[in-house]
């Protein structure tokens, strides 16, 4: 019922006493509510609408009651009519049952009168059957003979098998025994005939299958038959193998060899396997255990032959000649095709034989070929790198400035060679190759042969080569430095680039959790290269440093500084030589390890100044401090104080890989050696003066090479201090005198 009066604030269909359509409607409340809430007009409106609605409802109800009453009267009439109809039906049914009883009676009378005749007929037909069987039996020997003569063994066996059943049926009649014996004789002959075929090598396995199935149905043992069947095939297969073995020589073209292998041997073997499994395995006539047994026999037989076969295949396909030929694109293609052909045949054999799969052998062989190919590439890269290093050694000593070009060409050759080797290896992954479809093989090849076997090995080799270089006297020291630089270059970009490109091209996933093959970390490679580079530079530094040391030592140790009897005339010869050596060395180092920062620019700016100016500025800056050190005759104290404020410096320590640090390290080694030598001498006043001049001379020229001037000065101070200590009667020259002498 539609009622707008239901409009309370919270309208809900249940439990609202004001909802006139709801079940919980309470008229009193409703009346109260509308009286209190509605205006008079609205009340009037509501009342009239309610009255209208109630009238509508009344009339609806009346029509409903009338309709129902009508239907009820109709139903009563129908029921009354049905009652009279049923009574008629009952009478007819009684009549029907009486008639049927009569029919049954008659039919049983007919039946009994026919029974006798029927019995007679069935007896006669039984006799007829028996006679037929007897006739078949009597005819059996002749029939068998006939079949035998016609070589129609199938029919013969079929007949015999039928006959055997009857014979067993009539066992108790001795007269029939003779027939049985006769039959058995004939069947024995058939057997012998069938077996004869097995010895005949000309008979193919398929021919023999028929014999086998006949013999099996004659109840022969399946094991013996299987053995005979395989024995029949063996000589021929061995012969095939022999011919392959003969063809296993570089003179026979690969294709011919593969034809012998795949075309003949494997085909024949497949035929044998097919016939055998048809006869003994895929047949339903043998029970489960016998079939499994046969399967084992076949497996043993095939495995032995295949072992031989794969041995020969491997010998040829992985022989050195093949691998040498492989470099030629055409030959390479042929080899890959051969491998693919072999693999396809092996796969096909796998489908023939349950439980045995030769495909992995094929994959394994292919994998080995790829590994060897990668190894060959590696060897080639090694050889050419070694040659490049040797050449660079010669080239560097002839043209010291050419280092950047040499570096570039070595790096380019290396990358090119690796790329071309990779391209070659990628041919093994061509989509048309069956073995390339195998995911495991691809992964194994990609990781073991390509990534680890070639790329990673190349970088490992480089690191190793660098390490051994130090012991090898064939290479000049500059080559050490050159290789160090090369390794740094490779470390920064090439390693990651090469490994990544291999991984994308060969689809290796580094993060794959169940990666079966071990992946060498890229960072371990870069670390090895970096360490080698550092070791090379360190060795270069110590070598050059020691060379400088020897020069300085000879300046000090060989001379008797006690017997010097005159004032110095200028810096000693060896000091000048040291500076000369360092100057050329700096150029060489600079060409390989230039300073990258802006300080190198400043340095070169300054070095273009005259040394005179740098000296005067130095003197200006450091003037007050240095004489004060020299004037005190307790230099020990001064150097000790200096040490308090400076860190311990390792002389043969690690070296940063840029020019100024390399030069600093070399100078450091040289000066420290000079200090040690000074401490072993005893000198007179003039000797001390000479040292004073030498030290200033070194100071004037060495600052250009180094990146840590204060350390340089402290070393020079220490040399001077030690010289003063070792002097018998120390007096120092005037600073100005020393300066003018040092400049000579």
């Amino acid at each position: 019922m539609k009622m707008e009066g239901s409009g309370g604030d919270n309208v809900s269909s249940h439990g609202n006493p004001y909802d006139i359509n709801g079940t919980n409607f309470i008229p009193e409340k409703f009346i109260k509510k509308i009286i209190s809430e509605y205006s008079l007009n609205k009340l009037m409106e509501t009342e009239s609408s309610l009255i209208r609605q109630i009238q509508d409802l009344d009339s609806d109800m009346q029509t409903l009651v009338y309709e129902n009453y009508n239907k009820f009267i109709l139903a009563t009439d129908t029921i009354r009519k049905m009652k009279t109809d049923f009574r008629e039906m009952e009478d007819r049914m009684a009549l029907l049952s009486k008639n049927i009883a009569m029919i049954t009676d008659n039919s049983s009378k007919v039946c009994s009168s026919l029974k006798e005749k029927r019995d007679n007929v069935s007896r006669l037909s039984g006799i007829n059957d028996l006679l037929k069987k007897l006739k078949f039996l009597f005819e059996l020997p002749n029939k068998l003979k006939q079949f035998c003569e016609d070589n129609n063994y199938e029919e013969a066996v079929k007949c015999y098998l039928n006959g055997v059943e009857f014979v067993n049926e009539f066992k108790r009649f001795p007269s029939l025994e003779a027939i049985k014996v006769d039959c058995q004789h004939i069947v024995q002959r058939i057997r012998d005939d069938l077996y004869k075929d097995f010895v005949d090598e000309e008979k193919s396995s398929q021919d023999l299958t028929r014999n086998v199935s006949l013999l099996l149905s004659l109840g022969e043992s399946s094991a013996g038959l299987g053995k005979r069947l395989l024995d029949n095939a063996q000589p021929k297969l061995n012969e095939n193998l022999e011919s392959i073995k003969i063809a296993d020589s570089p003179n026979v073209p690969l294709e011919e060899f593969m034809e012998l292998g795949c075309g003949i041997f494997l085909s024949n073997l497949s035929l044998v396997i097919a016939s055998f499994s048809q006869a003994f395995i895929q047949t339903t006539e043998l029970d489960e255990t016998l079939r499994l047994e046969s399967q084992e026999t076949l497996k043993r037989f095939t495995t032995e032959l295949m072992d031989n076969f794969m041995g020969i295949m491997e010998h040829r396909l992985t022989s050195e000649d093949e691998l040498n030929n492989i470099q030629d694109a055409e030959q390479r293609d042929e080899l890959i095709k051969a491998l693919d052909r072999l693999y396809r045949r092996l796969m096909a054999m796998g489908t023939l034989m349950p439980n045995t799969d030769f495909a992995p052998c094929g994959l394994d062989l292919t994998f080995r070929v790829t590994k060897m190919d990668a190894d060959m590439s590696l060897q080639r890269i090694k050889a050419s790198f070694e040659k490049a290093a040797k050449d660079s050694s010669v080239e560097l000593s002839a043209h010291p400035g050419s280092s950047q070009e040499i570096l570039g060409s070595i790096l380019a050759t290396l990358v090119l060679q690796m790329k071309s080797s990779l391209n070659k290896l990628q041919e093994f992954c061509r989509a048309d190759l069956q073995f390339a479809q195998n995911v495991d093989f691809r992964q194994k090849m990609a990781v073991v042969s390509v990534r680890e076997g070639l790329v990673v090995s190349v970088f490992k080799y480089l690191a190793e080569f660098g390490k051994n270089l130090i012991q090898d006297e064939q290479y000049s020291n500059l080559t050490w430095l050159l290789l160090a630089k090369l390794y740094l270059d490779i470390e920064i970009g090439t390693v990651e680039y090469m490994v990544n490109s291999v991984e994308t091209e060969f689809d290796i996933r580094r993060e794959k959790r169940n990666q079966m093959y071990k992946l060498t970390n890229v960072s371990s490679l870069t670390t090895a290269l970096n360490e080698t580079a550092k070791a090379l530079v360190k060795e270069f530094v110590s070598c050059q440093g020691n060379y400088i040391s020897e020069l300085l030592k000879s300046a000090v140790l060989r001379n008797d500084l006690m017997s010097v009897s005159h004032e110095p005339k200028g810096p000693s010869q060896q000091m000048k030589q040291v500076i000369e050596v360092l100057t050329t060395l700096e150029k060489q180092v600079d060409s390989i390890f230039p300073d990258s920062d802006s300080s190198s620019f400043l340095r070169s700016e300054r070095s273009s100044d005259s040394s005179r100016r740098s000296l005067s500025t130095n003197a200006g800056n450091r003037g007050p401090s240095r004489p004060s050190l020299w004037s005190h005759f307790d230099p020990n104290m001064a150097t000790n104080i200096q040490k308090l404020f400076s860190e311990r410096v390792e002389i043969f320590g690690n070296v940063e890989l840029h020019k100024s640090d390399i030069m600093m390290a070399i100078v450091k080694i040289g000066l420290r050696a000079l200090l040690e030598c000074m401490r072993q001498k005893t000198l007179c006043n003039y000797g001390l003066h000479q040292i004073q001049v030498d030290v200033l001379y070194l100071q004037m020229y060495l600052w250009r090479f180094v990146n840590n001037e204060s350390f340089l000065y402290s070393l020079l101070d220490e040399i001077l201090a030690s010289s003063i200590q070792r002097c018998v009667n120390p007096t120092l020259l005037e600073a100005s005198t020393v300066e003018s002498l040092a400049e000579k």
Partner: protein
Amino acid sequence: MESCAIYGLETQGRALCSQAGEEEIIRFFVGTLSPRAEGQIHQLDFSDETNQITRKIFKLKVGEVWQVQCSPWASNLLGLCYNEIRETSAKMKCGVWKVPNSDTSEIPHQQQELVLQWKFDDLHDPRFNENCQYIDWHPSKTGRVATIYSTQYFVWDVEGGEPKLISSSKSTSEMYMGKWNPHLDGNQLATVTTTAVSGVDMRSMKQSWSIPLAHKFQVRDVDFNPNKQYCMATCGDDCAIRFWDVRNHKEPLKDIKAHSHWVWRVRYNGFHDQLLLTAGSDSRVLLHCLPTISSEPKGHSILSDGEEEVNSPPLEEGILAKYEEHEDAVYAVEWSTGDPWIFASLSYDGRVVINRVPKSFKYKILL
């Protein structure tokens, strides 16, 4: 690390030795080095309990001391190499002095003086004008001492009171030092030239072995393994310490690069030869443990071995401890002869540091 004891000379120093044949006292002798003053010998007694050093200074009427070595058969005899400085020349000489018996002496300590026994140089031909490089007492033969000069060396017998020249020989190349081999009945003297070490049989005066390139540059020191025949350690200017079987001169048994500058001294521990000290001009003293090439390959002493099989973990090969108390180059380090776990080192600035083998290692070796 256990604390060390430090003593300072007023001058530089290169000469240090332990008093031999003395088992009660831990005593070291240190020589002063200054071309402008007379040499002194400082006798330093170290007390293990109090960690204190008591000193006694002996004057010397000659120049600075470059080497001091206590004779193993008379603990009061010191062999010295000293620098005799004249107006225009300085000459290295050697001699033997006697430490006075302190009990009978009534003079205050500072005034005491070493008693000169002999100066070997005075016994030579007056025209003999070579610098003495090294003096080495024979480790077992009483009174036997070798003096090594630039191109010649002499063997003396001083047992009778007056030095008797036993033998002498010349070397074609300039010698740096020489040392007796304690094995082979003490008949072998090892001499060091620039990079070579060679052994000379004193009976036939023939070279019995030679390692022509023991180090890339100057060889600074040689020490024989006291317990293992043919085994020898060398060190030098290539920062390396090498171990040799003298029968194989091509390749060292072991090559250690642990110092960052020249290595000046190498010393086997007299009792436990897996312990080795090295000192270098990188101001460091290193204590190495080398069970693989020692006479006690399993890491325990021959003496305590036998009935009880020790199953303690073997000692690790490598550097046991780094001593960085010095601020200048360390030219000398010596084990105490009295206590095998104590040693002294001397740096050029005159600082003497007495240190111990870390206790944990001491027990590992002993137990």
